[in-house]
Every structure is written in C-alpha cells, then in structure tokens.
C-alpha cells in the first residue's frame, strides 16, 4: 500500500510512531498527482514547493520531539475559491484567472497553524455555481469511479482529488450541496457545517447567507479531525458564531441504540433512482437493526425549497458579483472607450454562461416591481422551511435521506438544461436554507459500480450527532472498503 492511500488519522499515527516522515507522505501524494492528474484533472494549480517546505518544517519539529498539531504533515488541497496569499485563487473563472490574493482565508491560516502541507488549488464550477464542475472556465474534472462521468459540483475537484488519492483531505464550500453532492458522486465523505460554525473570511462569496466551508475526506474520522481544526469564531467574519469547538472525534461511536432517526417522506418520491433508493433504505434498515428508532416524518415545504433557493442564491450572487468590474482586480476588457462599456465588456467576456444566467436571474428577482413577488416571497417561504426542520427536530435526533436523487451522471448530459442540473441539488439545498449541518457518507454502490451517498442532517450545531451517525453508517455498510480502480502509477488500471 502506498502512503497516498492512507487516511489522515492513519498517517497521523504513523508519523507519531516515526514509521514515516512528513516529507515521504507529501512526496508520495505529489507523485500521485504527477502520475494521475492528467487523467482526473482535479487541480488548477499544484503548489509542490509550498507543500514540501511545510513537510520539512513538520519533520524538523518531529526531530526535536515537540508536540505536533493533529493534522501536521497531512497534505491537503483547497477549493480554488479559498484565498491563499501569494498563490492564485481563480474560482475557475476567466475573471480571476490571474488573481493572487493579498491575504489568507481564515481556514487556510488555521491549516497553516496545523502544519498541513498545501498541495494545490482545486477545480470547481465557476464561482461555485453548478453541480458537475463542467462550468469551470478551464477544464472538466473526471469522476475517479468512471472517467466519463462528472465528479459532481461545485467542489468537484475537491471530491475527485480525495477519491483518487491525490490529496489526503480537501476543503470545499457548500451553498446548496456543493460539498455533499460531489462527495456522494465520488464515494467520499463531505460535511457542510452549521452556518457560522466555520469562518467564511477569505472564501470568495457566492450567496452569503448560505455559503459554508467544510471538509471532504476519505472517512468519517478524518471529517471529525478536519472540522475540529477549521471550526470556530473569527473576528473577521461577524456571522461566525462564538461557540466552543468540541473535539469532534469524541462523538464517533458505532452504538446507535435509542437514537431517533427521521425519514422524510418528501425525500422518497418519484424521480429518485431505484438503486439509490434501495441502498439508502438498506442502510436505514441496518441502523434500525443496530438499535436506532426509525420514524417517518414530514418536511412539507421540501417541494418549494428548490424554487426558493433558485431565487435567493442568485439574488445574493448578483449582488456579490457586482464587484467584478475590471477596476481593482481581475480581468478587464481592453477595448472599451468609456467606463460603462468597460464594465459591460469586462463582465460579458469574464463570466461564463451559468454565472451570467444566475446574475440575470438574481438581478431580475431583486429589480423594482419584482422584489416582493420573488425575493421577499422566497425569504418568507424560507421561514417555512426553517420551521419544518425545527418541528422535525423536536421529534428526532437526525434526518436521513439519499444525498442526491441519482448517482453521478455522464459529462454533457445536463449541461444544456439548467433546470435538470438544478434538480440534482434537491435533497441537499434545504440544509443550507435552514443553516443546519449535514454530511454525506458512502453507503453502497450501484450495479454499475457508482457510489451512493447517504445524507444525515442534524439540528444547528449538531455536528457531533451527524458525525456519530455517519460513523455508524460507515461501519455498518463497509462502503469505505471499496476504492475506485485507478492506475497505481501511470499505465493500465489495476485492482
């Protein structure tokens, strides 16, 4: 077994037992990127030197015998909408193709303090808008389980890199499912924390009331480890919540006796792939056999959540993306004779079709005469969605469903049909609307060998509870044991 195949907690233990050095771990993953990323295309930028110098610092500290942070020497990648000082942050957009942030995002700062080597920046749907990473202005990323399929999105590079062992863990951002949906498609673990649990400072804004940063990892233990490292209040993000961060690994146990699990009937409707449904129901049954109490619940406004989201998120995006005007940073069209034409040409040439579509939609929903009918109405319906969850969590500890209605789809299948693309987020976006935490954990595979994601939603700041259930699912299903068949080192595929 090569070093790049291990989880973060395994490597942490091996480092402490002095079985490996941090340099060996980082080199192993960098070689993996070198030999495989021409096929997967997860990375926009690889920062080999940054990673190596951090690994060297870890080894020096290890040699001195001083204590190391949990993630020391564990190499990771960041979605390319997380600012990294001195390193390009492109948002996979022509608009920011050459943008080098003058400051670090808080999550990256925390990972630097944790001494986690940065491998590079990961491909995504442009400005995090999309569900397949096909909206990247640069290139498509392949799903490691089937190279003709999408890795999901928008954090497709982050999920594919972890699934292909091109990073030990990564961070993504989730506005309507952008961590959980690609995690489900790529057979890895993805966690969207409670809104405010993790600082958004230095995350390029998409929809500010919905965006959260979270980990994408090989297993649930790693998700708990990484969340513990990145969570917490930050004076630079006044929406981050001042609440103590527990050691999330303490919540991990297999025993689910007496745990109340809600099964929302609105999430098991027509349109859900029968194989996906079967795998999810088998998992629910395993939890029940292990002693959990399962009951059907209702989230009556589920059906309205998609439409609500596709008003609110574009409205916030149209406002957030107004800053790209070609004046202070980013792309500028060179041919314009006056400033108004410069703005228009810059934005028209710099943004791709999905970003334009959402800016248009959001501008329309916020424009005079339509504000009440669309935006205000959507915000009121959002209240109803929040209340649905509040009522449900009076009865149950967690709510479970499939993460996505289908397994990973083929590249090109949905890219020309925005509505059908939007539907792949129907089970994930309600958690963003309600600001609650949710995790996707692999629970099985389809006949064709594609991973199926199991979603667990919890009440606000219930990260410990959803990690607990996810850990049990991981153990009960054994789904983590199966890995994609990829070449060990270049050349032909092997087991």
């Amino acid at each position, binding site marked *: 077994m090569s070093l790049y195949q291990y989880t973060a907690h395994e490597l942490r233990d091996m480092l402490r037992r002095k079985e490996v050095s941090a340099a060996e771990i980082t080199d192993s993953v960098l070689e993996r990127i070198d030999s495989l990323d021409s096929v997967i295309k997860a990375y926009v930028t690889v920062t080999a030197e940054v990673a190596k110098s951090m690994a060297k610092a870890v080894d020096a500290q290890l040699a001195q015998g001083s204590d190391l942070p949990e993630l020391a020497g564990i190499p990771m990648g960041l979605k390319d909408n997380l600012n990294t000082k001195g390193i390009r942050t492109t948002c996979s957009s022509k608009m920011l193709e*050459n943008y*080098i942030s*003058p*400051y670090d995002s808080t999550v990256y700062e925390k990972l630097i303090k944790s001494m986690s080597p940065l491998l590079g920046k990961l491909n995504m749907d442009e400005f995090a808008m999309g569900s397949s990473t096909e909206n990247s202005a640069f290139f498509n990323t392949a799903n490691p389980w089937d190279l003709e399929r999408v890795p999901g999105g928008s954090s497709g590079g982050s999920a594919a890199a972890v699934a292909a062992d091109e990073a030990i863990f990564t961070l993504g951002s989730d506005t309507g499912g952008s961590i959980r949906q690609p995690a489900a498609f790529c057979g890895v673990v993805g966690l969207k924390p*409670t*809104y405010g649990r993790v600082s958004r400072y230095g995350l390029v804004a998409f929809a500010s*009331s919905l965006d959260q940063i979270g980990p994408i990892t090989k297993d649930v233990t790693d998700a708990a480890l990484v969340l513990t490292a990145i969570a917490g209040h930050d004076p630079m993000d006044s*929406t981050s*919540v001042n609440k103590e961060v527990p050691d999330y690994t303490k919540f991990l146990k297999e025993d689910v006796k007496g745990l109340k699990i809600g099964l929302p009937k609105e999430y098991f409707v027509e349109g859900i792939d029968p194989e996906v449904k079967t795998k999810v129901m088998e998992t629910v049954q395993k939890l029940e056999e292990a002693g959990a109490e399962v009951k059907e619940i209702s989230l009556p*406004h589920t*059906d*309205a959540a998609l*439409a*609500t989201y*596709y*008003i609110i998120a574009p409205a916030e995006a*149209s406002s957030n993306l*107004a800053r790209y*005007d*070609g*004046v*202070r*940073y*980013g792309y*500028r069209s060179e041919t*314009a*004779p*006056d*400033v*108004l*034409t*410069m*703005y*228009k*040409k810059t*934005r*028209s040439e710099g943004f791709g079709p999905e970003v*334009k*579509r959402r*800016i*248009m*939609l959001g*501008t*329309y929903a916020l*424009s005079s005469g339509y504000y009440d009918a*669309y935006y*205000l*109405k959507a*915000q*009121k*319906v*959002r*209240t*109803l969605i929040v209340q649905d969850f509040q009522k449900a969590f009076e009865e149950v500890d967690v709510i479970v469903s499939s993460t996505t209605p289908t397994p990973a789809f083929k590249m090109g299948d949905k890219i020309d049909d*925005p*509505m059908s693309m*939007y539907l792949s987020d129907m089970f994930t976006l309600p958690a963003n*609307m*309600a*600001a609650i935490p949710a995790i996707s954990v692999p629970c099985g595979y389809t006949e064709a060998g594609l991973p199926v994601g199991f979603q667990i939603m919890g009440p606000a700041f219930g990260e410990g509870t959803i990690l607990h259930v996810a850990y049990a699912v991981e153990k009960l299903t054994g789904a983590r044991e199966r890995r994609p068949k990829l070449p060990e080192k270049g050349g032909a595929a092997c087991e």
Partner: protein
Amino acid sequence: MITKDEVQKVAHLARLELSEAEVELFTEQLNQVLEAAEKLQQLDTTDVEPTAYAVPMQNVFREDIPEPSMPRDEVLANAPDPKDGYFRVPKIMD
C-alpha cells in the same frame, strides 16, 4: 413571463452585454426557472416573517480603534491598470 426586452433591460442593470443568441437562450431559461418559482405564490405566507439569515443574528460591534490597512502596493498588485498609487479607468465623462 419575462420578455426579450426585459432580458435586455435586466442585462443593462447587471452590466452585462448579451449577444442576440444569449438573449434568446436566457429568455427561455429564465422563464423555466420563474415558472418553477410560480409555485411559491400558491403558499400562504400571511404573517410569516422573511428569513435573511437562518441563524439568529444581530449587529456585531467592536471598539472603533484604527488598525493597519493592507499595504498599498499589495492591494494594487492585482489592478489591471494602476497608476501613481491609484486605480485608473477609462473616461467617465465627456
């Protein structure tokens, strides 16, 4: 129903210049999304307060103490056309 003229008007508000083909496509696609949004009109939201943030929040204040700003040259390093410590743009008025 959003019309092609409205799409043009919204594009101007959003400072976008759309080709004829884009206007055509966006008119059709925006109508699909807005049609789905029509569902929301059927929900009774009388006396329902709108939610902007789903986590209870209030203004966060701090003492008004000046702190160092980012160095000017670092901020200008990304500017497409900096000059003499300023951001330069094409002419605004005749």
